[in-house]
C-alpha cells in the first residue's frame, strides 16, 4: 500500500514537473477568463434598444385606420386616441387592458350582418392573457423587443387577412356568426368594467373581473382555475400590480421578483393545462412532471419569500426566463459546466502522454525493472490521471466562480437551490448544485481520459493518443448527434458519445428517445471496461522492445 502511494507520488511529480502541466493550469484559468469574458461581451451586445415610441405607433395606426376604414375602425381609432391621451409606460398593465376592453367594445358595436373580418379582435389574440401589448413585448416571458416588428393590434384587424380559426373573442363568440344580443351586453359590461378600472388604475378591480371571467369559462379545468386564482389572490394580497415584464429591464425595481415569478407560474399553468387536455397517451409525461415541479417550486418561493433560487435544469421552463436576472452570477455560473469539454482537451493531453511518454523517452525500461508488478504501475498511472482530471475540474470550478463574480458581481451569491423530492421542496446551496453539474460533466471527461489512456498504452505514441483523443472528443459528440438527429440511426445510442453527456440526458435534450441516465451509465461502464482491457494488454502483457 505504501508502495502504491509511492507510485502515485511518482506519477504526480512527473505530471506536474513537465512544463506543459503549468501551461495547462494557465490554460484552465484562461478558459475561465475566456468563458466569462465571452458571456460578458455577448451580454453587452444584447443591450436593450428602443427604436420605437409607442405614441408614434398610435398616431400611425390612427392614420392607417382613417385611410383604410376597415370594419370596426372607429372603435380602434377611439382606442388609439385613448392610449395617446393616457400614455402608459411600456409595461403598464393598463396598456394591455385597454386593448382587451376595446376588443369587447368591438363585439358590442359589431353590425348584425355577417362579415368575416368583424370577428377579429383588434389585437387578434386572447386579450386576458395579455400576450400582446402595444410595444410588442410578449409579456410573460418578454422575449419580444419593442421595436414594433411584431406590431400587434391594428395590422391584423385592418388588413383583414386573418383566417377565422386564428381568432376568437374572449367570451368565446362563434367566429363565423355575429354576436348575439346577450353577448353584446356582456361585452359592453366588460368594456365598462375594464375601462373604469383603467381610469382609476384599479388593478385589483381588473383582476377581480378576470376571476369572474375565468369562473365562467367552461374550457378550464378546476385545477387550472384554482392555480390561476391562487396567482391572482397572491397579487391582491401582496399588492403586486400585474404590470408586464420587459426582458432587458428585469433589474428595475418595478419588475420585482414576485411579479416575474407570478408570470412564469401563469405560463407553467397554461402549458401544463394544454398538456393535460391531450389524451393521456399523447402527453409528454416528463414535461408534465417538470412543469408540476416548476409550479411547486415557484409557489414555494412566493410563499416563503425566496427571491432568487437555482432550479433543476429544464429546457422547456428555462425558456420562460430564469429566476435570476440575466447576466447575473447564477445565470452565468450554472451554465459554465458547458465549458468542461475544453478541460477534457487538456486532460487528454495528460492521459495520452501518461504511458506513451515513458516509451518515447525510453524511461519505461527503467520503470519496469523495479520490484513492482506492471499492473500496479498502470493502476497508479490511471489513478493519477483521474485525480489530476478532477483537480483540473476543481480549479476550473473555483476560477469560474471567482471570475463570474468579478465580471457579473457577487449579488445573490447565497441563493439556494430548490428541487422537489417526493412531494416536498428541498433546499441546498446552489454551489453544490453547480458542483453536481461539474461532477456529471466529469463523467464525460473521465471517460475521454480513459480512452486517451487506452490509446496511449496501445500505440505507445503520445502524438497519436493525444491527437486521436482530442479529435474524438471534439467531433464524436457532434457526429453522434448528427447520426441520431439527421439520419435517425438508432444504434448510434450505443456509441460512447451518445452517453457521456449526462447533463443533456438528464434534461432530455438528446436525439435518442427514452435515453436514461442508468442506461448511459451502463454503456459507459462497458466502454470503460473495454478501454481498460486495451490499456492492460498494452502495458502489462506486451513486451518492451
Amino acid at each position: 500500500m505504501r508502495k502504491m502511494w509511492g507510485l502515485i507520488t511518482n506519477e504526480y511529480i512527473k505530471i506536474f514537473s513537465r512544463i506543459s502541466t503549468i501551461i495547462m493550469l494557465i490554460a484552465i484559468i484562461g478558459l475561465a477568463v475566456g468563458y466569462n469574458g465571452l458571456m460578458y461581451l455577448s451580454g453587452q451586445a444584447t443591450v436593450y434598444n428602443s427604436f420605437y415610441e409607442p405614441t408614434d405607433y398610435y398616431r400611425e395606426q390612427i392614420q392607417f385606420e382613417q385611410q383604410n376604414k376597415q370594419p370596426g375602425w372607429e372603435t380602434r381609432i377611439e382606442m388609439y386616441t385613448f392610449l395617446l391621451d393616457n400614455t402608459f409606460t411600456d409595461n403598464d398593465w393598463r396598456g394591455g387592458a385597454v386593448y382587451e376592453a376595446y376588443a369587447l367594445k368591438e363585439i358590442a358595436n359589431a353590425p348584425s350582418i355577417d362579415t368575416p373580418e368583424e370577428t377579429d379582435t383588434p389585437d387578434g389574440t386572447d386579450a386576458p392573457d395579455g400576450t400582446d401589448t402595444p410595444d410588442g413585448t410578449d409579456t410573460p416571458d418578454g422575449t419580444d423587443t419593442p421595436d414594433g416588428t411584431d406590431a400587434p393590434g391594428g395590422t391584423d384587424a385592418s388588413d383583414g387577412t386573418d383566417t377565422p380559426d386564428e381568432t376568437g373573442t374572449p367570451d368565446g363568440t362563434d367566429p363565423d356568426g355575429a354576436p348575439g344580443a346577450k353577448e353584446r351586453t356582456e361585452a359592453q359590461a366588460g368594456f365598462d368594467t375594464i375601462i373604469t378600472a383603467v381610469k382609476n388604475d384599479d388593478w385589483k378591480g381588473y383582476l377581480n373581473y378576470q376571476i369572474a371571467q375565468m369562473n365562467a369559462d367552461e374550457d378550464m379545468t378546476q385545477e387550472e382555475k384554482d392555480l390561476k386564482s391562487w396567482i391572482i389572490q397572491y397579487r391582491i394580497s401582496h399588492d403586486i400590480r400585474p404590470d408586464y415584464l420587459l426582458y432587458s429591464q428585469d433589474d428595475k425595481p418595478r419588475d420585482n421578483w414576485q411579479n416575474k415569478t407570478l408570470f412564469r407560474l401563469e405560463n407553467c399553468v397554461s402549458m401544463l393545462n394544454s398538456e393535460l387536455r391531450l389524451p393521456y397517451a399523447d402527453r409528454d409525461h416528463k414535461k408534465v412532471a417538470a412543469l408540476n415541479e416548476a409550479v411547486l417550486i415557484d409557489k414555494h418561493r412566493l410563499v416563503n419569500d425566496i427571491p432568487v433560487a437555482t432550479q433543476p435544469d429544464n429546457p422547456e421552463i428555462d425558456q420562460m426566463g430564469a429566476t435570476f436576472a440575466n447576466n447575473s452570477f447564477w445565470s452565468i455560473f450554472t451554465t459554465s459546466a458547458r465549458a468542461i469539454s475544453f478541460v477534457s482537451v487538456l486532460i487528454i493531453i495528460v492521459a495520452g502522454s501518461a504511458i506513451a511518454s515513458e516509451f518515447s523517452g525510453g524511461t519505461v525500461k527503467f520503470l519496469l525493472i523495479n520490484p513492482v508488478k506492471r499492473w500496479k504501475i498502470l493502476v497508479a498511472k490511471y489513478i493519477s490521471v483521474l485525480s489530476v482530471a478532477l483537480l483540473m475540474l476543481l480549479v476550473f470550478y473555483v476560477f469560474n466562480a471567482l471570475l463570474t463574480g468579478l465580471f457579473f458581481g457577487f449579488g445573490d451569491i447565497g441563493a439556494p437551490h430548490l428541487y422537489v423530492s417526493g412531494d416536498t421542496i428541498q433546499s441546498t446551496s446552489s454551489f453544490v448544485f453547480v458542483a453536481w453539474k461539474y461532477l456529471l460533466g466529469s463523467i464525460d471527461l473521465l471517460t475521454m481520459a480513459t480512452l486517451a489512456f487506452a490509446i496511449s498504452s496501445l500505440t505507445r505514441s503520445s502524438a497519436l493518443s493525444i491527437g486521436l483523443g482530442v479529435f474524438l472528443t471534439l467531433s464524436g459528440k457532434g457526429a453522434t448527434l448528427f447520426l441520431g438527429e439527421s439520419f435517425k440511426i438508432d444504434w448510434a445510442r450505443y456509441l460512447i458519445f451518445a452517453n457521456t453527456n449526462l447533463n443533456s440526458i438528464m434534461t432530455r435534450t438528446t436525439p435518442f428517445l427514452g435515453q436514461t441516465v442508468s442506461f448511459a451509465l451502463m454503456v459507459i461502464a462497458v466502454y470503460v471496461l473495454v478501454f481498460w482491457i486495451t490499456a492492460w494488454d498494452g502495458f502489462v502483457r506486451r513486451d518492451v522492445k
Partner: protein
Amino acid sequence: MSETILQVSQVSKMMGKRLIIDNISFETYSGEVFGFLGPNGAGKTTTIKMILGLLAIDAGNVEICGFNVAKRFEKAMAQAGGIVENPETYPYLSGMQNLLQYKRMRSGVTKNRIREVVNIVGLENRIHEKVKKYSLGMRQRLGLAQAIMHNPKLLVLDEPTNGLDPAGIRELRDILKRLAHEEGIAVLVSSHLLSEMELMCDRVGIISNGRIIGVKSTKELMEQASGGRKTFRFTVNDPNRAVALLSDMELTVTNITPENFDLAVADDTMVGTINARLINAGIILLGAAPIERSLEDVFIEITGGGGNQIA
C-alpha cells in the same frame, strides 16, 4: 564462497518468426564481473531484457537469487539492478529527483544511501541540476547510481561504457571491480569494447547469433588467443632490417609497418634477447610493448568474423 546469483537456463526468444535467442544457458556468481560479449545483433540486449523482465521468456527460465523472474517478478527484481541500452532519464527532473523516483519503488533505500551512491558515481556537484543539462556520460553515471542504490545482488549493465571518456571508463571499471570483488555483487556487463572487457571481466561469455558459443575465464581466453604465445609490438627506426636480423629465431612476425613490427613470442624472456640483438646491430629501439588486442582476435575468430555474418 561464490554462490550462483543469476541462472539463465535454456532460454529462447522468438520475435516475429525469427528465433533471436536460441537455447542459451549461463550463470553468474557473486563476486565476479561477467562479460557478455558479442557482435552487433548477437542478442545481448535481448537476453538482458529477458533477465530484467522487460521481455517475456518464450522458453526456459531465468532465476535471480533463486527467484524465477517470470513467476516471482517482485522478489527477483528486488535483487537486481541495471541499465538497459542507453541511460534514459526524465529530462525535466533533476538527477536527485530521478533517483527519488526509483527510491519510491524499492524498499530499504535511505536518503543516506542515495547520497552515498551519488558520491560513488561522482555526481555530487551536479545532482540537483535538471538532467536535460547532463552529458551522456553524466547520465550513464546517474543510471549506475540508480542501478546500485538498493544494494542489488545482481547488477546488469548493457554497454555501460557508452559515452564515457577514458577517465570515466577507468573509473567505471574500478567501481564495478570493487562492487564485485569487495561487496560480492555479481556484475553482468555487455559491451563491444573488448579491450575494456579484458581489463574488467573475470569471466566472459561469448554470444553470436543468439547462441552462447563459449564461457571462459578471461585468462583462458587470452591463452587461447595467443596459442600460448604473446604478441609484442617493437617500434624501431628500420623495421625491415630488424625483421631480417631476427629471421633465424623461432618467431612469428605478424605485421610490418614503416615504424614497427609485431612479434609473437613463446615467452616473455625472449623479449630481452631480442632487444639486445637489435641494439647490438645498431637499430634504434624506441619501444617494445605487449599488444592488448588479443581478446579481439579471439573474439573475431570465435564468432566467425563479427556481426556482419549472419548464419
